[in-house]
């Protein structure tokens, strides 16, 4: 039994899963919506600025510069990281769960255990299947984003396309980290949907609780790409909590990195932790190690659902 055979089998199960297909379809639609949203909101701000300038000029007041002026075209896609951290990460969690759960439900785990295949190889195959699935999600996001950018009246330069590719790679890393975590939880926890729930709880805590502790006080700030990039309130508590929890506040690290890459990061805004990219990659590696260990030690012949 080769690794690729297991990968093919795992992916064919994912492709037949209606829940996964529904999430992928919603994700693709929202990536397109994100481009339109950013473009239309930018136009609205420019129109407001134009009217404000007329009034300020009539009053003889000083006219401040347009805050949206010289915004790079990729900033129109500023909702993309939000959708990746919501729908993309959740879809990856569902895929990670289904990769183990499908085999467990079908009762084929003991059959796999009876084959002369090293457990480590089965674990690697499942992880590979997950990474291929998240690569597909990223490709869908990239294709829709490119179509949207080409259909809007925006001037894209070569550097902008490179920045989009880098932003998508960061998104792939973020989604894959959660997918691998769910793959590990699904192998470790035998109850139906237990892996899905455990990974979802971690995802919720990272998305809505940690940012509240590091300084983005209101949980719903996470849904707005501009509000999510807030300064740390100037109190000793937030300075310390930001310093201590910043390295594990992944959603903020990802949001900051994508905002910098896509050119809408407020000037002078520091990340919560000194090396956000390192934090993101460490989370990816840690999730991968957990997924590998949990799947390698998965009891193929025991357990109530095996």
């Amino acid at each position, binding site marked *: 039994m080769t690794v690729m055979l297991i990968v093919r089998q795992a992916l064919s199960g994912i492709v037949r*899963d*209606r*829940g996964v297909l*529904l*999430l992928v379809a*919603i994700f693709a639609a*929202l990536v397109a*919506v994100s481009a339109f*949203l*950013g473009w*239309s*909101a*930018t136009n*609205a*701000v420019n*129109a*407001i*600025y134009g*009217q*404000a300038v007329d*009034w*300020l000029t009539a009053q003889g*007041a000083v006219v*401040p510069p347009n*805050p*949206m002026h010289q915004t790079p075209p990729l900033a129109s896609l500023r*909702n993309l990281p*939000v*959708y990746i951290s*919501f*729908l993309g990460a*959740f879809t990856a969690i*569902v895929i990670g769960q289904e990769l183990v*759960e499908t085999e467990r*439900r079908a009762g084929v785990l003991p059959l796999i255990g009876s084959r002369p295949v090293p457990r480590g190889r089965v674990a690697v195959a499942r992880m590979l299947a997950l990474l291929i699935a998240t690569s597909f999600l990223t490709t869908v996001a990239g294709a829709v984003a490119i179509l949207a950018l080409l259909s809007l009246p925006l001037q894209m330069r070569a550097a902008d396309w490179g920045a989009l590719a880098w932003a998508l790679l960061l998104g792939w890393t973020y989604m894959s980290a959660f997918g691998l975590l769910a793959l590990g939880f699904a192998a470790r926890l035998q109850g*139906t*949907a237990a892996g*899905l729930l455990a990974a*979802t*709880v971690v995802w*919720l805590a990272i998305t*809505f*609780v940690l940012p*509240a*502790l590091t300084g983005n*006080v*209101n*949980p*719903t700030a996470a*849904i*707005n*790409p*501009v*509000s999510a990039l807030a300064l740390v*309130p*100037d*109190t000793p*508590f*937030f300075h310390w909590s930001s310093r201590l929890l910043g390295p594990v506040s992944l959603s903020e690290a990802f949001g900051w990195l994508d905002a910098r890459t896509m050119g809408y990061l*407020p000037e002078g805004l520091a990340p919560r932790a000194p090396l956000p990219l390192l934090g993101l990659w460490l989370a990816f590696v840690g999730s991968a190690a957990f997924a590998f260990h949990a799947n390698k030690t998965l009891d193929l012949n025991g357990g109530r659902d095996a």
Partner: protein
Amino acid sequence: MPDTLSPMARMATIGLRDAREALRDGFVLVAIAALTLAALVSFVTGAIALNGDAATYAQAKALLLKLGKDVSVIAAPELYPLKLLRGTVEQIEIMGAVIALVAGYRAAAAERGSQALALILTRPLHHWQYLAAKLAGGAGLAAVLLAVVFTVTGMLLPWVSGVALSAGDALRLVIAWGAGVLYLAGIYAMGFGLSLWARSPAAGLITAFALWLMVVLVAPQIGDTMDPDNQVAGGIYAQLSVPKAEQDRIKAGFALYETIRGGIEQASVTKHYERLTFAVLGIKDSYTGKPLGPILTEKRGDLLFLLFFTLGIGGVVLLRPINPDRLTKET
């Protein structure tokens, strides 16, 4: 379940069995602890941030007084204790909804997973009685969950803010609790119904999560990010130093854009729950310190939406017959 039991007693038997199960495996305790903890984190960090604003104001005031300048040029931060509940309400919107979804999934999966649903329905029990018992159990769980959250935060409010709560404040908290119970009961019914109707309860849970993402996060997110004032840090009007009257004139020119934006937001039950609760608790500045009567009159549309949402989903769950092909864990 003896055949001589009254319909109410049969429903109570099913509801109590679910409650015992949830208490035995710790789900209720974990759910209460998780939501209370999340709510407290937001509550305490909100209080600390406000405390920081007050300290900044005191420093600025002292500096102005030292320089012999007028202190009225800087606005003093206002302290209304109930405003500190903003983060708590937002955690109920998000985390509370997830807990309600999972509770609904568990209620459906419990009997399907153990193959007991087929057995229960061989008893002289109407389908609606079984479903009503499950829905009542979900509403009961939401009531207990939020009672703990609001009691704990309500007890901490005077201590954190240094301002005692009045009877009127307590009434506002009770109304916010009731709105929360309605909201979570509706989400629970959605999770329960989808997990009962799907080929497998887990597939129903995934669909319910997809709907949760759309209703709780994406629809409010689209409305929020379409707001031009949210596109610029600090707000576009504040950054351009445009007075309120001129802002209103400019906004009037964007009536269609605002209608579309508001329409998207209003498609989300979460937004109606938020608008009602923020107004009742005075979290939104325009409602702070206002009497309760006019607020409830103005916000009756949000309350009605919340009622229709919960009763509508509950009604669909109650009226849709249980599919005989969906009685077990896998079909």
